[in-house]
């Protein structure tokens, strides 16, 4: 089974950077993009998403609100929330919905922990 990762960011550039870094870590994964929370929820509803990487600061629903909704719908989906906003409240809210906090700017190193953890989890559950 090919794994599909959803990348949600209102910035096209940021989506490209995230996609490239994920590709470097997991070249075989499919990558799907959404530019806001509503679009993301619509994509996820189609049912082929295994994990998601969410930008925090987006117009409309922010990445933590989206993470909370996804968590309710998919209790075990690996989720990461990405932001340069390293305030404790944001980190702890990410933790509360069982999402991994990843600091911006996104690099391969920053994503490695989340991506390899998710790969392992999806394999064992899969």
């Amino acid at each position: 089974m090919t794994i599909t990762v959803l990348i949600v960011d209102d910035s096209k550039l940021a989506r490209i950077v995230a996609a490239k870094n994920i590709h470097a870590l997991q070249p075989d994964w499919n990558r799907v993009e959404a530019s806001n929370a509503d679009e993301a929820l619509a994509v996820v509803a189609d049912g082929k998403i295994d994990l998601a990487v969410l930008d925090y600061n987006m117009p409309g629903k922010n990445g933590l609100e989206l993470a909370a909704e996804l968590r309710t719908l998919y209790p075990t989906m690996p989720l990461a929330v990405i932001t340069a906003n390293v305030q404790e409240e944001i980190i702890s809210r990410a933790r509360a919905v069982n999402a991994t906090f990843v600091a911006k700017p996104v690099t391969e190193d920053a994503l490695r922990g989340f991506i390899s953890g998710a790969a392992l989890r999806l394999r064992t559950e899969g």
Partner: protein
Amino acid sequence: MAAAFVKLSEIEHDALTELVNIGVSRSAAGLRLMVGEEILLSVPSIDVVSHKTAVALIGEREGDELIAVRQDFAGAFSGRALLIFPQANSLELVRAVVGDEMSPEDIAAIEKEALAETGNVILNGCLATMANMLHRSLSMSLPEVLRGDGGRLFEFGEHLDDDGLVLFLYINFAMRDRDIRGYIAMLMDLPSLASLRLLIGDFIDRVMNEDIPIAV
């Protein structure tokens, strides 16, 4: 002679928004350490508008007297950065920074200094992050505390008339548990925007052309 108008492409606009967003988010994390409570930020809004419109955009939203910390920056690109909030919030912001145990008299006595330092953390932090990501350095003036309306806060050198175009970007900020809110604003004239645009182009090339194939 008016400088030729530079319109940012979609990806340039996107990259600049992202740079500002990362810069401001990092400074908010710095301010959070100073005040011990969460700082809320909006998504940055970026536009090229006339100087008059920039003044009106702040004036329209704020009927009250404003207070601002202003820092000018110069280097690869130049401009003015401001942390702006209603004057009525000023002492509360100082209280958030120095702690609730100080007397009102003591708070009033250090108001200006505390505001300047808060502004410095936010504005300098944001610009330094942006400059680093653009691989350039910027020099920053000392923070200056100003009171007045939008027109006074945005006075921008004699060479710029009211109809001259500026890059105007702003972000709303608020503190979750206190009645404090304001804006971070930046103004750049068109020659600076043209220089900035070249650096943004390099930045986009760098992030797009690392030796990893782009997703299909």
